């Protein structure tokens, strides 16, 4: 009885964490949508929509009885594709190797496959263990693709600027995006350990409860770090910048500046030798 009570406590704790996660996802989505609109940044609005799609998806799962799981899957898949589009439009416009395009095509392919498997699991072969675990197995590379792509893009950008004279809060934003995305890329791994035909979080099943808890913790860590990256309070920016001295620009007139440049070029004997 004590064991069941402690399982029930764990269930409610993890459920509260998950509710907190949904609230944060919704807040971040709305914030990014508004800020993107205010700053005329379509890519930020797309990311806001990604978060809102995920929120709506999970609400659909809980509140729509018929087809709730399918609606959730469609909305979450749309959200994930929007994440890829955000990464591409923020980090990879006009990139010579067009990697972003290939990632997007692969992502859409994965999304299509996930949708087919969701239909199979929900309507056609609900008791088929192989279909069930194949869907989970295919979910993993999709998650790895979406979130590691963002992590890689952000970390690569950070490496390029880490030694430049740029405000530390900007560098921290890159790091938080990279770290949170990397963490989130693994959030589907616990599903492999979810017992078949048992609902995730079923508190009468300890294994399911542990899976639920791990997914809740990973998701919450992602959303807190990612949220902090984008909704960085001013006191935190000031704290990060406390030892930062921005470059002080000397003011030249146009004529002085052009003379200065001509003198520097001729001193270094660099006409025709760039």
């Amino acid at each position, binding site marked *: 009885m004590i064991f069941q009570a402690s399982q029930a406590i764990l269930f409610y704790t993890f459920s509260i964490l998950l509710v907190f996660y949904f609230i944060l996802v919704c807040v971040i989505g709305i914030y990014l949508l508004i800020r993107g609109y205010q700053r005329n940044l379509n890519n930020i609005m797309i990311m806001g929509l990604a978060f809102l799609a995920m929120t709506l998806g999970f609400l659909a799962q809980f509140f729509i009885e018929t087809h709730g799981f399918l609606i959730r899957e469609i909305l979450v898949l749309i959200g994930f594709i929007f994440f890829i589009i955000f990464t591409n439009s*923020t980090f990879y416009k006009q990139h010579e190797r067009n990697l972003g395009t290939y990632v997007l095509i692969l992502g859409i392919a994965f999304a299509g496959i996930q949708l087919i498997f969701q239909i199979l699991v929900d309507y056609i072969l609900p008791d088929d263990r192989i279909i069930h675990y194949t869907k989970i197995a295919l979910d993993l590379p999709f998650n790895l693709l979406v979130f590691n792509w963002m992590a890689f893009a*952000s970390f690569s950008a950070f490496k390029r600027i880490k030694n430049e004279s740029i405000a530390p809060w900007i560098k921290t934003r890159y790091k938080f995006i990279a770290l949170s995305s990397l963490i989130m890329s693994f959030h589907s791994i616990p599903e492999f350990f979810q017992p078949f035909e048992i609902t995730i979080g079923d508190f009468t099943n300890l294994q399911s409860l542990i899976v639920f808890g791990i997914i809740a913790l990973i998701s919450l860590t992602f959303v807190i770090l990612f949220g902090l990256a984008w909704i960085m309070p001013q006191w935190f920016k000031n704290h990060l910048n406390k030892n930062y001295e921005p470059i002080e620009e000397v003011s030249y007139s146009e004529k002085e*500046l052009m003379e200065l440049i001509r003198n520097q070029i001729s001193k270094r004997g660099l006409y025709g*030798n760039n």
Partner: protein
Amino acid sequence: MNISPAAARGLIKLSIKDEMNPFTKMETLEFKDFQKIIRNALKTRLSELNVQNIQDIINSLDQILINNQSLFTITKI
């Protein structure tokens, strides 16, 4: 070009002034604005300075801009 960083920044600011509306605020400039500035006004300024291999410099700056394009998003929120 091996000019000092201050001179290089000054040159880019002059190019911004050449290419854009004089009332344009620096913080409103976007990725495609900077591409235009590099490919047009800066190229003209370099030409006035009789710098050779201008196209190599322009291509190099263009590539740096493409590689660091995320800063236009990251710094604006």
